[in-house]
Structures are given as structure tokens and as C-alpha cells.
């Protein structure tokens, strides 16, 4: 039994060294050389300043920008998480109802019961960078009018930024809101 304890302690430290130090450092080293941009967080720089990450959603409230999904984390990149509201939650039903009204009011042509569910529900991470193509198209008229562009011009940008299923099979078609909004800012420059 004493022997088992001595071996245990040695084994604990050897495995700790191999899997807790060597392995993560090897991955860090190779990643930094082979995939530096991804390893650092897929950050987007504009004019020398970091304006966000392709992968992390951002809050937008101006009419000039496309809006992301609601976030239970207020898009705080240090406090990810969902609302955890259950399917029979009065608060959830109330929140969704309020958001639907806001979307309908802000977007010309939108009507109640035709607002895609992803645009009025909070994501699992609170940082979802995407909306569905339907949710993006719903906002085209608003953004176009706020920017003095034609609906066709804005719709063109949405379509340009719509990603299909990966490898034709995986996931869902989606629009990256931050990338689309950057493209809007740069449109016509």
C-alpha cells in the first residue's frame, strides 16, 4: 500500500508534466507558427486598431448597422452564456414578444409572426456572430434607408456575406453580422 502511494505521487507529477505542460505548450508552439491568426483569436484590424473578432459577436443598435441576435451576456467577451430561461418561462415569452414588436417597429415591411425566431431569441454563447440570412434580409430596408443606399445595393452585400453550409453539408447558411457591417462602412469608399 505504501508503495502504491509513492508510485501514485510520482505518476501524478509525471502525467502532470506531460499532459499539463508539454502537451499544451507543443500545441501553442505549433499553432503560433502554423495558424497565427486563428490562434490569436481571428482578430480584425482597421486603421491599426482592433475592431473585433470575426468569431465573436458585437452589439449593434444604430439603424445604420445590421443588428445581431439578442445576447444574455450583452456581448461581453468575458462573460459568455445563455439566458437559461425554460420553455414555459413567462419572462422568455415576454422578452420574445417585446423583441418582436421592436423588430417590427424598426424595420419597414416586417410584420408580426414573420420575424425569424433566431432574431428574437438569445444564443447559447451570448456571442453568436451570425444571424440567419432571413434575419439579415429583414433588416435590409432599414439599413438602406439610414445610409441612403438602395435596397439592391445592401441586399447585394448581404448575399455576398451569406455563407453556405460548410462542405455543402455541415451547419446552416448564415451571415456574419460584424463582417457585413464592416463591408457596409467600406461600401463606396
Amino acid at each position, binding site marked *: 500500500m505504501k508503495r*502504491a*502511494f509513492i*508510485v*501514485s505521487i510520482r*505518476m*501524478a*507529477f*509525471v*502525467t*502532470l508534466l*506531460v*499532459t*499539463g505542460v508539454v*502537451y*499544451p505548450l507543443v*500545441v*501553442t508552439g505549433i499553432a503560433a507558427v502554423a495558424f497565427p491568426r*486563428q*490562434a490569436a*483569436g481571428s482578430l480584425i484590424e482597421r486603421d491599426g486598431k*482592433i*475592431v473585433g473578432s470575426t468569431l465573436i*459577436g*458585437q452589439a449593434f443598435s444604430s439603424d445604420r448597422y445590421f443588428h445581431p*441576435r439578442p445576447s444574455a451576456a450583452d456581448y461581453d*467577451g468575458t*462573460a*459568455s*452564456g*445563455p*439566458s*437559461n*430561461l*425554460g*420553455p*414555459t*418561462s*413567462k419572462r422568455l*415569452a415576454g422578452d420574445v*414578444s417585446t423583441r418582436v414588436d421592436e423588430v*417590427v417597429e424598426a424595420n419597414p415591411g416586417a410584420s408580426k409572426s414573420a*420575424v425569424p*425566431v*433566431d432574431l428574437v*431569441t*438569445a*444564443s447559447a*454563447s451570448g456571442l*453568436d456572430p*451570425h444571424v*440567419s440570412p432571413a*434575419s439579415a*434580409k429583414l433588416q435590409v430596408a432599414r439599413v438602406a434607408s439610414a445610409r441612403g443606399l438602395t435596397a439592391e445595393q445592401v441586399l447585394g452585400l448581404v448575399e455576398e456575406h451569406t455563407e453556405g453550409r*460548410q462542405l455543402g*453539408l*455541415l*451547419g*446552416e*447558411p448564415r451571415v456574419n453580422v460584424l463582417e457585413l457591417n464592416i463591408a457596409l*462602412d467600406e461600401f463606396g469608399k
Partner: protein
Amino acid sequence: MPVNDVAYFIVYFVLLVAAAVPLGIYMKRVFEGERTFAHPVLEPVERVVYRVTGVDPEGDMSWTGYAAALLAFTMACFVVLFALLRLQGFLPLNAGGVPGMTTALAFNTAVSFVTNTNWQAYAGEASASYLTQMLGLTWQNFVSAAVGISVAVAFARGLTRSVCRGIGNFWVDLVRSLLYVLIPISLVLALVLVSQGVIQNVSPFTSVTTLEGASQTIAQGPVASQEAIKELGTNGGGFFNANSAHPYENPSPLTNFLETFAILVIPAGLTMMFGKMAGNMRQGWVLLAAMFVLFAVGLTAIYGLERAGNPNLARAGADISAAADRPGGNMEGKEVRFGQAGTALFENATTAASCGAVTASHDSMTPLAGGMTMLNIALGEVIFGGVGAGLYGMLIFAILSVFIAGLMVGRTPEYLGKKIGPTDMKLAMLAILALEAGILVIAGISAVTPSAVASVLNAGPHGLTEILYAATSAVGNNGSAFGGLSANTTFYNVALGIGMLIGRYLFIVPVLGIAGSMACKKVAPPTSGTFPTDGPLFTGLLIGVIVIVGALTFFPVYALGPIVEQFMMNAGTLF
């Protein structure tokens, strides 16, 4: 069902089986000490590890010796991890400036990671330093998985051996699990994940000025190295609070597919290893078939229910229908990029195997879909199950099944030609009862303790389900949660910590006991009266036993939780 979603599921299973067969054969060779293609590189490393730690790799242990070594090692790991969690505030590599964990939280977290549960009463980005994540948590992600594989291998040896000389050497099984299986696959997977956008750095948090001029801080960290083993070792503890829903843990549909694949590949491979060790691959296929059938039922339920969505959201004015340009269904607590199919497959896999990583909020799933994820755990974590834990759990049910079949025809039950005696049956029942009683007793106590009930977020039947899910997840060593429950209280940290210990060691020790008892039994050649355990009849019986045991135990409380809530949701009752 849309063609694309069906194709997604089919491709997943075809690739899973295609990988399980060679992986199982490879693992059999590794654990039987035969040479493989990896030996020229890894054998010298293996020998160095034995020399440094003072392990004698020759010679098998009795089951008691095996269990003693396992428990002593676990204790050592617990002490080191507990100390690290308490002291992290004083240690380097702490970009978030997090303080040490409280005693109760550190106890809960250390037990959680040592038992391969990875229940998290804390949020990773706010409560664990980079050093803790790498040194403490990544380490235990590997080691607890290796312990699980070791027990499964020892159990398989006990059942298939025809000579009475112990059940293997714990240290050798542990080291080989790490060196030949877990580390190489994790290394490759981690790098593929980085290429897709999973982060891997020890940089400070990033400060961002958003397009609208607001500031946003983005947490960073060595994520990919932990992400890979988190799924591969069916651990499930997220680097971030949002776990695999976080875009830095799971950035694309491809990473989602790979992570889902990694959850089941070793559990599936172990059934093939068992078949190979039994000298009859059909013995492995019947187990895999039973797992597959139960898995398909769960997947169909979760996918169908979540895709149908929550009628309360439709009543509130949302369009929950799916189309080519929108996922539809229940999107509360889900990510657009994964959609309903990718999410349903992940959630079913993570609960069927005792992983516990999540890409969605289980708390926000429709009642029966959330209930299905809980039932997957409650059935004993045998539907593929945890790495190792799934195989030895399934074999316990196989023993129970041949016993029941033996009672029906009035013959002494046999499995793989070995007679099952009263001791074996008592130990098997002890393991099953410890699991089920543990869940119900802890949930029961919580439901009548005012401070425990105060942790509940959602009112109505959903609140009971939150409590029941926590107990199920802890004792089942799963680790996923109905996240609305505020679990970082002294009561839950202690109660669920005890639950995790019960679910792990009151299962493992009886399993090793049966292994020791069976190893010394003579193999009798099959006769015309032998009940064959390598055909579809046995698969059917096995499924029946698992479902009946689970249903009888849990139906009453499920009726008060998810089942009644489903009716209330459809009727529009809100709480």
C-alpha cells in the same frame, strides 16, 4: 426531415463505425502488449515513464491491488488539483486576475475533474486562470479519461481471460491509454481545431473598440489543447462558461462535427476492442448495436422536438418555421451556425456519452427534449457512455441481461462461457443501485432543502427538472447542466461532489471486483442450452433491460418534471 439533416446524421455514423473498427483493433493490440505502428516512437517514452515513476511493468495485479492503485492515484491527483485551485490567485499565468476558489468550490471542482465528470459550478473565463486550465484541468481531462479506459480494459480482461492471473497492471494501462491513445489523437485534433479558429494562446484579454465606438473585452487562453481532450476523453468541462457553444471553443460547423465525432469515437472503438479481446467480434457488435439503437431513439426525439420548436415563442410573434434561409424551431439558447441538426446530434452525444460539453442551453430546450438528455444520463451512461465507463457500464447490463435470461429458462447464467455467480450478481446490482439511488436521494434531499430550492431559476415543473438534472449529471459523471440552477453554493458543491464520488467509485470498485472474480473462472464450451450473447436476440434483450430498469426507476419523477411541462407548454401555461 430535410434531406440535408438526414445526410448529416448518416455521414456521422458511417464515419464513426469506419473509425471505431481500426481504433478498437489498435487498442486491443496496445493493451495486450502487442506491437503496433506507434511502438517505435512511443515505446522508448513508455519505458522512461516506468523508470522515473518506479513502476514494474511486468506482472499483473489482483483486482484489489488494481483498485488500490487506482484509488491511491486518484487521491494524489485530487490533492494536487485542490491545492492548485485554492492557490491560483498567487500563481503566474493569470491574465484575468482571478482569485483562488473557495474551499467548497475547489472541493467540488477537484472531485469533478478527477472523476471525469467536469461539472462546473464556476464560469471558466471568470474563475480559472490559464495556469489552472492547462496544468490542472487539461491534466485531469487526460488522466481521468485514462483511468476510465484502464478500468474498461481490466474488466474486459477479467471477462475474457482463461488463465487466473489477475486483471492487468493499472500503471501500465494508465500510461498506455495516455501515450498510445489520448495524447496523439488530441494533438492532431487540437491543431485541426486551431486551423478552424479555436484559439490557443496565453495572451492577455483583448480590448476592442467596436464599430459603434463601445468597448468590448474578449477573453483569450490556451483553449484548443483542452478542447480536443475535453471531447475525446468525454470530459466536457468548458474553457469558457458557454462551453462548446462559445465561438472560440467551437467556431464552425466543421469543428462542431469533429467535436461531436471525438465524443463517441473512443467509446465506440472500445466495443470493438472488447469483441477482439473476446475472440469474437460479434460480441462487440451486439453491444455497439444496442448503443446505436438507444442513441437513434434519443437523437430522433431531441431533433424532432427542437425542430418543432416552442409554441409559446410562436404565440409571442416569432416565426418558428424552418426554411432554406433560416433554421427555425427552438432557437433560444442555440447558435445559428450549428442549426437544429448539428445541435441535436451534439446534445444527444454529449449526454449519451458522459461528456457533458454543450453547444446549446439544455435549460432552454423544450421539456421532453431536455428530459431526453437527462434520461440519456440516467440510463447509466451506457449509450456509448464515457471513455471506458460506457463499456464497463454496458457490460454490467450485459451481465444483468444474461442473469435475467437465465432465470427465464432456469439455467445458470453464463457470459462468454463463464458462469455468473451470486457474488458477481450482487456486485453488478450494487453498481446499478448506487447510481440510481444516488441520483434520486440527492435530488430528493435538494428538493426539500430551502437553500437548494432557492438556487432554481425557472418556476413550475421546470424548476424540479433543474434540480433533478443536477443530481443526475453529477452521479452519472456527465457534467452538463440545466445552467439556470445557481450551483455554486455550499450545499450543491458538497452534495454534488459526494454524488460524483458515488457515481464513479461505487461503480468502478464493484466492476473491478467482478473482473477479479470472473478472471479465475473456467471457460465452459457452449452447449445447446447456452444462451448466445452474440446475436440480435441478445441486443434486443439488453436494450429491454436497460430501458426497463431506467424507466421503472425514473418514470414517477419525470412525470412531475419534463412530461407534465410538455403538456403545459403546448397548452400555453407560463410560470
